[in-house]
């Protein structure tokens, strides 16, 4: 199970869109999630879902996010019930969870249907030096490294007789590895940084990207549509 979603290779209509229009789509989703009325947020969530289906993103990739959201939802409900009573508490908690779900979904779609290098190229096109434009991309790539390290530590513990069948066992196994995980991830990060430098990263003021991005008429229409829709939903 992926802890953090990575780019999902595909050739759907959405995948082919320019990263700038995808970013606007994401921002529209976030804006409605933050500023819209609950009905608008629900509508936006449905719009996001339709786009997710169009991009053929596998539902299994949302498992971890759904789990995190469920835990957050339970916490929110408990807190709201304590401070605002049953009816108001449930309504407020439900609204907060809906907004959070909309935000998370929009973000997960952006990272899953946008190639990381396209995001870097977007920065370069906007005048950001490639050394800085590529940093967030490489930072996102660092997350699977941490996942790999965590998996390695768990496998190592398993090989030494630890078992992780129950939640209690998992927690018991996880706590002692937090510090080593951070240390090992830092070590990996250092090695990656060395590999990047010894491959010439940052020497010249520009570099050749294998990919290219272009803002087409379809991108323009999609972007305009999303801007109008989010405007309507927020002011509705």
């Amino acid at each position, binding site marked *: 199970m992926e802890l953090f979603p990575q780019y999902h290779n595909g050739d759907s209509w959405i995948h082919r869109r320019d990263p700038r229009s995808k970013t606007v789509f994401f921002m529209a989703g976030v804006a409605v999630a933050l500023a819209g009325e609950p009905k608008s947020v629900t509508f936006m969530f449905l719009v996001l879902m339709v786009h997710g289906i169009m991009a053929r993103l596998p539902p299994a990739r949302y498992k971890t996010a759904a789990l995190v959201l469920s835990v957050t939802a339970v916490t929110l409900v408990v807190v709201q019930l304590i401070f605002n009573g049953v009816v108001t508490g449930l309504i407020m908690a439900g609204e907060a969870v809906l907004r959070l779900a909309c935000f998370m979904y929009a973000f997960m779609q952006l990272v899953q249907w946008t190639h990381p290098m396209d995001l870097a190229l977007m920065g370069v096109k906007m005048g950001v030096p490639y050394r800085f434009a590529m940093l967030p991309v490489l930072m996102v790539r660092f997350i699977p490294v941490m996942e790999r390290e965590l998996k390695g530590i768990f496998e*190592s513990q398993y090989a030494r*007789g630890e078992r992780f069948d129950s939640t209690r066992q998992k927690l018991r196994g996880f706590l002692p590895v937090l510090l080593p995980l951070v240390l090992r991830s830092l070590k990996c990060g250092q090695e990656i940084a060395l590999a990047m430098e010894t491959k010439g990263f940052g020497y010249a003021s520009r570099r*050749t990207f*294998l990919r290219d991005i272009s803002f087409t008429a379809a991108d323009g229409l999609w972007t305009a549509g999303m801007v109008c829709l989010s405007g309507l939903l927020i002011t509705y």
Partner: protein
Amino acid sequence: MIKAIIKSFSYPTGNVVLRDMDIHIPAGEFVVITGTSGSGKSTLVQCLTGVIPHFIRGDLDGKVEIKGRDLSSLSLPAISRFMAYAGQEPQNQLFNLTVYEDMAFGPGNLCLSRDEIHTRVEWALNFVGGRHLAGRQPDTLSGGETQRCALASYIVMGQEVLVLDQPCRELDPEGRKMVYDNIYQLHREKCLTVVVVEDRPAELAGLAGRFLVLDDGKIVIDDEAAAFMSHYNLAELGLSPLYKSCPEHFSPSAPPKGQQKKCGADHGEPLVQVEELWFGYKGDSFLFRGLNLQVFSGEVVSLLGPNGAGKTTLAKLIGGILKPVKGVVKVNGTTGYLFQNPDQQLFGSSLWDEVAFALKRRRISPDEIEKRVNRVLEIVRLNDLAGAHPYTLSRGQRKLLALATALVMEPAILIVDEPTGGLDCRQADLVAEIFTQFSHRGGSILMISHDPDLVKALSRKAFLLHGGSLREVKPDGTFPAVS
């Protein structure tokens, strides 16, 4: 081409790692740097490539020049334009989404045209025999595949100096020969300067022109290839394993008196039984379709096969780390597991804590823990370093420590993945001795290894894993060709 005068180098911890070095490597020379574990080979090449002092801090008293330019005045990206440095750990040298993108990363930084980048990437992947890996995610590669791709990601940049720290450590014998032959061809055709760090220099005898041997941070031998191979006994220098020269220790047919136990297929229940095993990673086709294997008490069974055949996956299935899709994996007894990459196995704050971890979790009495940990650390000869942090050890020592974490549980079955990879010859001899003693006491070992001498010395049974099926082969030190 390379001129290095290093009076001394020490890490911030204070210990002097290199001393009294005066090295001159002319353009177009093929040099092998060798020596036992911890002799300073990797530190030396880090000095020769500018990684020290630009990236790794320490007190360097000396100067390294390449083509008359002082490396301390150039940045690492600037040095990378004429010198490739492929470090020891291939796992973290690939960091893009696909292998192809990783190949294109360096040439992209050199501002080459896209056509040129595509041509070079194709060439580099062919160079290491990894064309089929282009579309794979680096995280899904096996150890050997990762090393091939990491090497290619440097060679693709086309520099005039190649500095490679154990570039074939994780490769199968066929792959090692191919890569070293290709490096030699490249050196001849383009007159490249090549510096290779290699623990077992014999296999480079026909390729390299000069050998430097390090011991305790000093160059003790600097000789032409022909003179080096004829004047020195590699085994005495600790540069060739002794498996064959000590049959009384290493022949499984002659266990020491008092330690003899029945072993082999004719004696009772198997310790490991794999029946009709089916397995495939999520989203991939089946890697194994109905695989069968038995390992009996006292047996050392070798698992051979090319990189990416699924040897580690099979070992993890037997070790219980992975679950089969279909079929049965029965293991009668405790399992000890030695990972291919020891760093995946170590997370303690000291050697003692690392080894004691499993025992503490089992709530064994402190006295017993003390006794067992000390005994195991003594077996792997790391007892003097019990209080040190695992990351301060050399790779060979880390591997021995990882082995200690498996041995301390007193397992009935040891599953070991490339147990001598990254070890110098003396350490490899020690591992062979430990395994022999272990099997003579009735323990079983399932061993994945690309070390033909080790397989021949220890195993009486070997299986070739290829194309998802197992075939029994003779453990005679030759690796059946599969390509």
